[in-house]
């Protein structure tokens, strides 16, 4: 191996170590109050699902699950402001790597949320006899996209904000929007919800191209969001 290749490899390893260090610190901040409440939060939607055993229970459970993972991203930004950023400023990890860490974690949260929603769908199909597992699989993609959307929008806002109150109000707004969507869905005329689901069904019938286009858009927006966050964080002063 040439010295240039060895240097490049060492550089990659160093960046990899820096990224892992930053992710570890993000998780440590996130779980500073203890990890025990998180399994409860993640499993609670299953309780609601089994308690209701209907469309409303399913939507409630999916919303709770998706919101919980989205809220973790929001919580990271709040903890950042509360802890004064100073350890992040001292850690030997470049700022753009620290930002990248949060987007990698965001992607992980989105994937876990998606898997959890798939599990909710599976449990619902076992608990409710006329439940269509296949027809509700788009919800899995929906959860993934919603968490990614929260990450895409929220991380730049979190880096830009210096106010815990502002971030907490933002968290509340996100929660209210989720509840509103949930309540609106159950209150909306059946014809309307059926047509919305019909759109999903049409999209589902072209699953591959829709998934490719959706993924491309999501990746592009995610990358733009990262670039904005990196720029904000690079200029941030403490």
């Amino acid at each position, binding site marked *: 191996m040439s010295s240039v290749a060895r240097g490049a490899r060492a550089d990659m390893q*160093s960046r990899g170590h*820096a990224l892992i*260090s930053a992710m*570890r*610190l993000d998780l*440590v*901040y996130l779980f*500073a*109050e203890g990890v025990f409440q998180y399994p409860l939060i993640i499993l609670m939607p299953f309780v609601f699902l089994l308690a209701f055993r209907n469309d409303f229970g399913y939507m409630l459970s999916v919303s709770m699950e998706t919101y919980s993972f989205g809220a973790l991203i929001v919580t990271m930004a709040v*903890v950042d402001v*509360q*802890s*004064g950023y*100073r*350890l992040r*400023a*001292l*850690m*030997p*990890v*470049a*700022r753009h790597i620290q930002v990248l860490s949060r987007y990698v974690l965001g992607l992980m949260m989105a994937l876990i949320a998606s898997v959890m929603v798939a599990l909710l769908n599976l449990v619902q199909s076992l608990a409710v006899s006329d439940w269509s597992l296949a027809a509700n699989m788009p919800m899995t993609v929906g959860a993934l996209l919603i968490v990614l959307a929260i990450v895409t929008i929220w991380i730049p806002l979190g880096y830009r904000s210096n106010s815990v109150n502002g971030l907490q109000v933002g968290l509340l707004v996100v929660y209210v929007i989720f509840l509103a969507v949930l309540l609106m869905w159950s209150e909306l005329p059946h014809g309307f919800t059926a047509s919305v689901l019909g759109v999903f069904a049409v999209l589902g019938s072209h699953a591959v191209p829709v998934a490719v286009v959706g993924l491309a858009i999501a990746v592009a927006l995610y990358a733009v969001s990262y670039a904005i966050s990196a720029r904000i964080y690079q*200029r941030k*002063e*403490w």
Partner: protein
Amino acid sequence: MTAFTPQSTPTALSVTGVTKHYDSGFTLEDVTFDLPAGYIMGLIGPNGAGKSTLIKLILNMIRRDAGDIHVLGLDNLEDEEAVKEQLGVVFDSSYLYEQWKVKDVERIVAPLYPTWNHDLYQRRLVDFGLAGKENGSKRIKSLSRGMQMKLMLAIALSHDAKLLILDEPTSGLDVLARDELMDLLHAYIEDGEHSVLFSTHITADLERAADFITYITGGRLYFTGPKDEFEESFKLVKGGPDELAQLPADMVLGSHVYETGFDALVRGENLATVMRAVPGLAVERASIDDIIRLTNTRHDNKGVL
């Protein structure tokens, strides 16, 4: 301004023409100094002089508008990661998340530094009275300010940081703990490879520990160089109430008028001229406190405004 440029010793910290403007109007203007490796430098100045701004610039916590900063020969922006591996930092308040427990700190911080020394960290905890189950279960927020400082110091000393940067480290400590810290800093630089930059208001610490002084006031560098040279550069002249007005105004750096007389600070090289103007004035050695106090007063030949 007096400048000192080391010729033979490697440089631990080199600050060249560093400038930072704030929207508030405060400006840290064109600050230049070098800290040779193996020495302790005291960074002094009144509140709001720009000491913390300078430390934040070294740590790249704020962006500079002009100038260069090199730590152990590395640019603090281009080589930020390598520089920060070599830095140990203690702030005047804890940078650790207040919900963390003392026993968790090593697990969190150690992976950040490739040269982390577990045994050394544990020894420091024992030395600083932070070891044991009871202390381990305490949350950071429940520690006193002095103990928080000691914990940050234990971290700073446990990854072979070549340069320690301490921002008001003694402000939360009693006299005994301050003495211990000064002894520890002396031991730390003994091998000639480690260096310390510390800002302080407590000039007794400087008298004991500092080899070099960098004095900033109003955002400008007033002096940088060996501590002895700093004290020898200034003289305190004392006289009767009417004599202050007779002093050459351009040679009085600052003065303070009392009912029975005045203190005035002059540069050592101007002392003969001052004494010729007003023979019989009492001349005393200026302490660091005198220099800070009197260079931050205005003088108009009638005394302090």
